[in-house]
């Protein structure tokens, strides 16, 4: 319903988002970060199957479907990251005995897939109107092999000469680390530097969220 095509900053790849595009879901979004594209849909709160019921909180089920082939072990890890991150963002105690399903479909992967998936699910959550403690923004970055430079939001070509790759998610209140994933070996100082850099950049994503919300809030 809303097309957003603004280049926020040269640090991050251009973000692009269309929300509420699935009519049957309670909240949905298609989120692009550069060429990496993910469609996320949320259903719920709805009734739980008895074996997965948590009597004191909302349970979250995440299904990630890769572009080709059936879901593999690798995708389970992405699902875990998204489930646990979303669980921290949602006010789970408000809806006991119920569950929500977050369905993610990879459309294109050109680097930073995990970050893109987390951002997409956060946007879908905002769209669904579920009560949340805060929003989360995920940023990926890498350390270049030769120069040791930190490159924000790298794409696939840049990633080829990466020494290490990080994905962080931050909350919108204190900008603390919600989730953290890394690939490759790195030293402590490199790690801390990358956290700092990503933390700064995450503000752009939060601003982007606000921008999107503003767009549709005004029309409704």
């Amino acid at each position, binding site marked *: 319903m809303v097309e957003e095509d603004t280049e926020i900053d040269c640090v991050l790849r251009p973000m692009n988002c269309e929300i509420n595009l699935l009519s049957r879901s309670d909240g949905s979004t298609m989120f692009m970060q550069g060429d990496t594209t993910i469609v996320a849909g949320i259903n719920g709160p709805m009734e739980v199957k008895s074996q997965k019921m948590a009597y004191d909180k909302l349970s979250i089920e995440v299904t990630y479907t890769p572009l080709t082939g059936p879901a593999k*072990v690798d995708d389970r890890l992405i699902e875990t990251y998204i489930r646990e991150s979303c669980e921290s963002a949602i006010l789970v105690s408000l809806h006991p005995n119920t569950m929500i399903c977050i369905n993610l479909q990879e459309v294109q992967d050109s680097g930073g897939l995990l970050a893109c998936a987390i951002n997409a699910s956060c946007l879908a959550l905002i769209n669904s109107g579920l009560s949340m403690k805060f929003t989360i923004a995920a940023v990926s970055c890498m350390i270049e092999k030769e120069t040791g430079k930190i490159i924000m939001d790298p794409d696939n070509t840049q990633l080829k000469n990466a020494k290490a790759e990080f994905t962080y998610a931050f909350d919108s209140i204190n900008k603390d680390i*919600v989730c953290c994933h890394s690939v490759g070996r790195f030293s402590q100082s490199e790690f801390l530097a990358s956290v700092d850099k990503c933390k700064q950049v995450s503000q752009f994503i939060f601003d982007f969220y606000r921008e999107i919300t503003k767009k549709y809030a005004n029309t409704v």
Partner: protein
Amino acid sequence: MDLQYKTIHPVKYLQDHLEQGIRPDGRKFLSFRPVSVNVSSIVQADSSAIFKLGDTSAVCGIKAELATPKADIPDHGYIVPNVELSPLCSPKFRPGPPSEQAQVLSKLIDIVLSNSRALDLKDLCICKNKLVWVLYCDILCLNYNGSVIDACIGAMIAALKTLTLPEINYNSETGVIVTHPENRKAFTVRTLPVSASFAIFEKQLLLVDPSDDEEDMSSTRFSIVMDDEEEICYIHKPGGIPISQNLLCKGLEMTKVRAKSIRSVINAAISTLNVNNIETNSPK
């Protein structure tokens, strides 16, 4: 009385302990459980290790087999780590295909192996394009009491470190393979990645090496894997409440100390094995 209290009010039970500055198993907040390692106890496996972290224990057995390499990386062998959280180790698990948790654990271990570059897959090549080794590392959790990833990584690394492979002669023209089981060569492991797990409770309270109950009731958990050179191989925090950078730094410092001690335990276990080997071999 203690037991009843624990079953009726599990959360309050833990909170009361934490308020008193002690954990239910009597440890301080920042003290790790004792580690013990036992290597090469399983005869049928090519190499094996049992890693105990307090109650938590995991056993890793490695079976080496032969296969043809992938076409795009013809000189790379395979390493296939799989974690099995069988119903044996905890009432949480049911028989059947691996649970999501087991799948995530397997993947994490796979990531740690590739991140740390502890082994070079080229070492597993016997004949380029034709024959390579496949190392099936099966990690079996025997007792599930928290920080399982630490135990799994420990068991796997100790097993890999003691792995020896028999000499294989491959005739690339006829395709005949001959194994010489007497000439076993040690497999090089470049570094020993060691993992440490942490649990965070409300008000940013940091607990190291959490037990199963502590893990369940914690607000968030994270694990750090470090190698010999104090380089970080993996930082894993799947979600949960946001934590500050300082807390992570504290975790990093703790990991450094912990990694050193675990490494010495593993090395000690391996050296006793070598001593035994020499002793048994010498009379002959």
